[in-house]
């Protein structure tokens, strides 16, 4: 078990190194940061001076080695755009993204699991057809369009919720939270729903398909023959056995929620990491881009590890295989 975790962590380092190496080669194509930094009236000498100071004239491999050398010490450099340490910027923006992702994931799970079970059990009921049709909207409409539609309805027409921003936030230590104020909670609703919609649809359809699969199996028939209650059969036996793929997908989806909240955050001017990253691309803020990509790689690796560990918890077969030395 411990060896497994250590091996995974070692793999994580390699993944993160390759991600940063690849991103560094890509930075050659995003443009010259100095032009964004100095404004139109700077002389050629001033531009060159800054370029030299930032080490932008050094060959890419040298820049990469310097970046890795500093990054292992927790120093990701300074944002070209905001003149602040990148790790501080990310620490400031991380709570916004994590709160948004947390609420979105909760909405997705809380709504998707019952809907998935219901549509799996009552395939032909009219209500199931309504749910499935509506869920098509979640899959097919792009996120930015859903966001704008929600803003139009709930902010412009009804005036119930704010159209942008995080509302009032409260500092708890270094963590800034929007949960503690009414405005903060109101501001969370629209972006969280926007972000949740796709996941919700996906999880619901997945559970439905898995449920339909499992309900056909023999042990469900035996369970019914034993006279177990519907609740025990459907939730205790059927749902539990659908969970392995659901956990995998949900876990990976949370990773992509963190990484790709970019669109939602931009539509709602949500001051999270995705928004920071998008602004960084427009400004050619290389230190922010590099740190963000490394962080996202780390998030994915970490979530994969957690997902693998969760398998052990829900699937006894894996534990047996490991303990007998099977499965390599």
């Amino acid at each position, binding site marked *: 078990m411990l060896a497994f975790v250590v091996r995974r962590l070692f793999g994580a380092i390699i993944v993160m190194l390759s991600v940063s190496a690849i991103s560094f080669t890509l930075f050659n194509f995003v443009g010259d940061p100095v032009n964004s930094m100095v404004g139109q009236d700077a002389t050629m000498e*001033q531009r060159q001076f800054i370029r030299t100071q930032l080490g932008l004239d050094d060959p890419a491999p040298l820049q990469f080695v310097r970046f890795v050398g500093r990054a292992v010490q927790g120093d990701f450099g300074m944002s070209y755009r905001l*003149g602040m340490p990148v790790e501080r910027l990310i620490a400031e923006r991380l709570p916004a993204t994590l709160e948004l992702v947390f609420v979105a994931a909760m909405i997705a799970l809380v709504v998707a699991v019952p809907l998935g079970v219901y549509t799996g059990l009552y395939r032909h009921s009219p209500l199931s057809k309504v749910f499935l049709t509506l869920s098509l909207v979640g899959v097919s409409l792009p996120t930015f369009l859903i966001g*704008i539609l929600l803003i139009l309805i709930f902010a412009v027409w009804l005036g119930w919720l704010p159209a942008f921003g995080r509302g009032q936030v409260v500092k708890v230590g270094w963590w800034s939270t929007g949960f503690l104020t009414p405005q903060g909670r109101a501001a969370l609703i629209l972006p969280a729903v926007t972000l949740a919609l796709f996941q919700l649809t996906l999880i619901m359809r997945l559970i439905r398909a898995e449920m339909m699969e499992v309900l056909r199996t023999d042990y469900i028939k035996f369970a019914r023959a034993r006279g177990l209650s519907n609740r025990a059969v459907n939730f205790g036996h059927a749902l539990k056995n659908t969970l392995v793929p659901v956990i995998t997908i949900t876990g990976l989806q949370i990773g992509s929620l963190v990484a790709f909240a970019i669109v939602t955050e931009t539509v709602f001017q949500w001051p999270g990491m995705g928004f*920071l990253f998008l602004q960084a691309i427009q400004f050619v803020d290389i230190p922010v881009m590099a740190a963000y990509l490394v962080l996202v790689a780390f998030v994915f690796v970490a979530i994969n590890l957690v997902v693998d560990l969760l398998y052990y918890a829900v699937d006894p077969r894996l534990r047996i295989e490991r303990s007998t030395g099977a499965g390599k």
Partner: protein
Amino acid sequence: MTKRIALFALSATIAMGVAMAAAEAKPFRYSTAQDILGLDPAINNHGPTNAMKSNVYEALVYRSAPGPLEPGLATEWQQVSPTLWKFNLRRGVKFHGGQDFDADDVIFTWKRLSQQTAEMQYTIRSIKDVRKVDSHTIEIETTGPDPTLLANLAYAFIMDEGWTTQNGGERVVAGAQASTFVNLNANGTGPFRVVERVPDTRTVVEPNPNWWGKHEHGITRATFTPIANPATRVAALLSGELDMMYHVPLQDIDRIGQTQGIRVMPGGTARVIFLGFDHRRDEMLDMPGTGKNPLKDLRVRQALYQAINIEAIRRTTMRNSSTPSALMIAPSVEGFAADQNVRAPFDQAAARRLLAEAGYPNGFPLTLNCPNNRYVNDEAICQNVVTMFTQVGIQARLNAMPMPQHVNTAGPTGGYNSSMYMLGWTPATLDAANPLGELLTFNEQTRLGLANNWGRYSNPRVEALTQQILVEPDTTKRRALIREAMTIVRDDVAYIPLHLEPQVFGIRDTVADYQLRALEDVDLRSVKMR
């Protein structure tokens, strides 16, 4: 007993309500796409940021919306000799932190701005020395006569020597070198002081009660919120979360204008959008192996100019919001002459004839490099232009990229790697000397034009005139010189000017009046709350 308490509570509530009404809180919430970059006045030469600096800091002179330069921290000035100026400084002025303003602060600011890392160095480039005569009088000596000194000084924002040095801000740190106190905090003498700044979220300012001038705006608290997505920005204005925002996307102008309680205020800016040519290469990038650069032929440039139907672009792509221009300077710029502002007519037959005369009856391949996220509808304009070029027989194609890549291709760091490109230019000083030096001069010795004249257009007569314009103190003579230079440039078709960039503001009725500025920014002094 209970009744009495209830009554008391009721009257207390009413009293509070009255008190609040008496204070007449008038918050002003405004937005645009980009956040300001920081608060250090010596760096961040960027439209919205310069405007925020000018709300908080003051320079010796102040440029109000469209008008002439007004006294700022200097009450009066005189030019003692062509290279010597004397300024009387305003007395009794205090910085927001309570420090007194005097001549030492001006000298300190000048020295700070002289550093290589200071982007705003251009504002004091002609200054040789600043001397203190007494605590509230200074002399400025320039290296040569400089007629644009005052226009430049309007952006040299004065900092307090004590506050800056105590907070370790003497050395100017360009953008990404280190996190500095003076870039995250501000201490000016201006009409507003910074209350809160959260990057990418909001910057809050409040009126400075000790300001020497008269507060006429009626704002009690102004909150600047950047909103990157234009649709969200429009929604926030419609939902009443903003009092003012720009730029209104052109397709939303009608809709916003029809909404009750909101009006649209369109206007021109000082930014000329233009197309540039590769004037330098003997062999054009698009025609490898031929040894030819058709763009060096005046007839070809004239043909391309006359192939563009600027009225069609104005009507359709720009939805009547742009102002076509024949000159490289806008009406708000010193040196502009209305009678010169006449475009060569759109004439496809003439364009074809000129191309045939130049030896290209069947056209030639041509790539137009364009930004796709910098100017209003930039890529769409270029698409139109490419189609129009095709109509006269040019094998034109479009290469649209985000601005940083565009600069890195067609600009100096890309080795000026472009045959034709689009760019926009605003002279911050609102003086013709700036585009003449930056766009119409290319001189390896003086280093003028290397950064921004991407087509490397160079004409000895224009450069000689520019040198004179830079030092000519007499306004009438200077205007004649600018006129001559602009005529040569126009006849040479050094560039194809397209139009003036529009700026469209959406304003709620909470704001009684707003004075548009040519620089696409918000000066809070130009706001009048209802």
